[in-house]
């Protein structure tokens, strides 16, 4: 990877030229100003898909209701990594304990929204679009951030989802984020003979709007693929990441951040949290994978002086029911917890009290913090943008950063 042959180099540079050759008609000057103020600030979103059981992640280890509701699956108090007098971490979540000790994490309890929806897809859409529960939006909150702040960005890699497909969160009305599993694969896809030939094909006549849009997307895809591929060769991480998918993906993100890629937002997903049966092993395996990958990521960024410029948000579409079900699992619930990590947090440790298990709503934890307040805080205080324009409503900043 590091030592590319001369021939390869020539190939790449001719490609880069090919990319720019077809660009002029779409080329706008990259508007540095719009993202200048906060250019170095990165946001990394980690999505737990399937509904992570927050109660077994951040454990209320002195709460009788918790242990009575979960005779088979509660985390025994002697195994909990204790943080406060009544809250502690799942033993597999060592990263949270470490970051808690170093003041690099802020945990928000009872996160959710009014009239919670218990369908994975709908609830995830609500999180992605930042809509109310009875409102249907077709753009995502980060997509709308791009719409407002990146209208002149030449290339879509301002926000990268480390995946083959792009999530709704990153789709705006005018701008989209960029889906990319890994730079080499992306490059290979755009280098198929046909795609290159199409892109190079000279177009004399004006295209109808939609066809023009397709050609523009194609041109942007190719130039972003080239750019990211070049950037990806600058720095190869020496930190040991765990083997799983998330480890690979976070390593990818760290390398791009450390190479000072023009990307501000990164989005990764970890699936498998829909633990209706035999939850304990399944969830703990996932949490352990997350903990190890995240520990490596933090270490990598700290060593390269990037941790202070980074904010990581980890969320899931909903929490799970307080009481366990008949198959040593839990069903879809509502209120949950959310983790924010970074070197510049203003509020460290627990943002608020743990859940009130005496007063549930239909067997679920009631939300006390709307997730859109978290988004508003990130948009306003971290990305320094007009949060109301993005969220289309006013949500108070929580002041954690």
């Amino acid at each position: 990877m590091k030592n590319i042959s001369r021939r390869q180099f020539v190939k790449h540079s001719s490609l880069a030229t090919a990319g720019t050759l077809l660009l002029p008609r779409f080329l706008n000057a990259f508007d540095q100003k719009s993202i200048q103020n906060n250019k170095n600030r990165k946001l990394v979103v980690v999505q737990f898909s399937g509904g992570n059981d927050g109660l077994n992640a951040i454990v209320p280890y002195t709460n009788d209701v918790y242990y009575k509701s979960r005779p088979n699956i509660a985390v025994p108090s002697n195994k909990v990594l204790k943080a406060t007098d009544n809250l502690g971490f799942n033993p597999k979540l060592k990263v949270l304990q470490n970051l808690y000790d170093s003041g690099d994490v802020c945990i928000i309890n009872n996160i959710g929204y009014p009239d919670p929806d218990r369908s994975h897809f709908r609830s995830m859409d609500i999180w992605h679009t930042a809509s109310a529960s009875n409102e249907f939006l077709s753009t995502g909150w980060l997509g709308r951030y791009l719409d407002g702040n990146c209208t002149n960005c030449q290339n879509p890699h301002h926000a990268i989802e480390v995946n083959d497909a792009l999530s709704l969160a990153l789709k705006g009305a005018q701008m989209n984020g960029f889906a990319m599993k890994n730079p080499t694969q992306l490059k290979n896809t755009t280098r198929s003979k046909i795609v290159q030939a199409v892109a190079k094909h000279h177009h004399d006549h004006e295209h109808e709007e939609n066809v023009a849009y397709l050609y523009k997307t194609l041109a942007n895809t190719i130039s972003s693929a080239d750019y990211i591929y070049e950037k990806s060769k600058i720095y190869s991480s020496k930190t040991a990441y765990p083997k799983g998918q998330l480890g690979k993906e976070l390593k990818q993100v760290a390398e791009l951040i450390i190479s000072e890629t023009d990307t501000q937002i990164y989005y990764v997903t970890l699936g498998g949290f829909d633990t209706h049966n035999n939850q304990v092993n399944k969830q703990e395996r996932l949490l352990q994978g997350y903990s190890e990958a995240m520990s490596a990521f933090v270490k990598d960024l700290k060593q390269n002086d990037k941790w202070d410029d980074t904010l990581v948000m980890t969320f899931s579409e909903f929490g799970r029911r307080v009481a366990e079900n008949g198959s040593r699992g839990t069903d879809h619930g509502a209120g949950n917890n959310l983790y924010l990590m970074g070197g510049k947090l203003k509020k460290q440790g627990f943002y608020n009290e743990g859940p009130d298990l005496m007063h549930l709503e239909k067997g679920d934890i009631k939300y006390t913090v709307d997730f859109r307040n978290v988004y508003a805080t990130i948009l306003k205080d971290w990305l320094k943008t007009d949060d109301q324009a993005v969220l289309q409503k006013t949500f108070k900043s929580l002041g954690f950063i």
Partner: protein
Amino acid sequence: MTEEQKIQHLYWRAGFGLSPTAFQQKRKLPLNKVIKDLFKAAKKIQPVQMPHYNLPSAESFKAMSKAERLIKKKEIQKLTPEINLNWVRQMASDDYSCLQEKMTLFWHGHFACESKRFDYAARQINSIRAQALGNFRDLVLAISKDTSMILYLNNQQNRKNKPNENYARELMELFTIGRGNYSEQDVKEAARAFTGWFSDRKTGEFKFTERQHDADSKTFMGKTGNWNGDDIIDLILDRKETATFLARKVYRYFVNEKINDKNVALLAKVLYQSNYNIGTMMQTLFESDWFYAKQNVGVKIKSPVELLVGMSKVLNLKFGNAKSVLFPQNYLGQMLFRPPNVAGWPGGKTWIDNSTLMLRMNFAAVVFQRVELSLELKDQPEQPKARRLKNLDISGDVVALTKVFSNVKEADLGLKLEGYLLQVPFGTKDSFIETLAKEAETSEGQIKAYVLGLMSLPEYQVC
């Protein structure tokens, strides 16, 4: 536009484009005859095929243990992709009315609803099909009594003393009259009128449960009476705004996302005056000169299903298993029976991002050259593990194409194929596609090269 181009435009919008054989048969016919034939063929209702499965009777289901029932339920859910596959095959086949299929697809997006069980999915899509060109009143009534919809929008929980407004609200906001034409009080009153409209959990049939129905007086849109669900639908349809709302939706889908108010007003008038006869409105649309105007041709980004089925028509694609239709649908963002939410697929440019465009452009190569793109879908809850695009069982052939285009002179072949495949000009002459085709030694090879090239173009993504 030549008559031949008009027929192609018609077939793209009223169907999924022409198969080579149909192209040869129709291209020289008078346009008005082609339109008439489309509507004639659509008269015969052809339900989607059910997979072979012995559904347990209500009694035997009741007699099962909880564990047995769970197993059965999973089996039944697992078969939903088979309905998807059967429907796609049906859309792609010339043995079925493409207009009926297209209208059914349109209404499936309009009455967006997730169906988890294959039998409910088939039932819903077949009752839509039966009314797809019929009377909108019958269609919306059938949907209001449809099990999937009753479960999806919580009418099952809509009880006399505890109304659930979900269905009543979406009925007005998304299915009939649109925002701004009713009050919150109307939503409440309509919900009361639909109380007790349940699905029988055992049979999956509609069941009106009188003791859960609120039979008291309601005031809806200014009119007071002992309204039930049927009455509410009648009252909504009495309003001209409903016809306008539907005409706009039809116009955006079948003509152009950019609305022309005059044309929409005409469609709305026809719909209202025909007492909501959908077929009458659609025939007016396809017979209007403006439908064939230059600004309305080649301006629609094909939905993933339109793209997939359109390619199938040309290449006689064979989908070996359900996965082969599910993966591209899922990856490209339009999974049948799984719309993103009750508002349906937003369509247009939202189909396109860097990853969907790459797959769209490479898809012909995947089919033709068995090119393996190693793409993966995210792990999704309630879904089998992430699947790869590898191992897709899709194959096609150019037999029909070769038969139809074999007599064309070599020098004209590119132009002719471009005319057949694209709705907007590309300029195949002297392009890389021609270079590619000239490398081929046989005429079949040439046809393949042209088709592969043309189908990989951004121009092929619009119709």
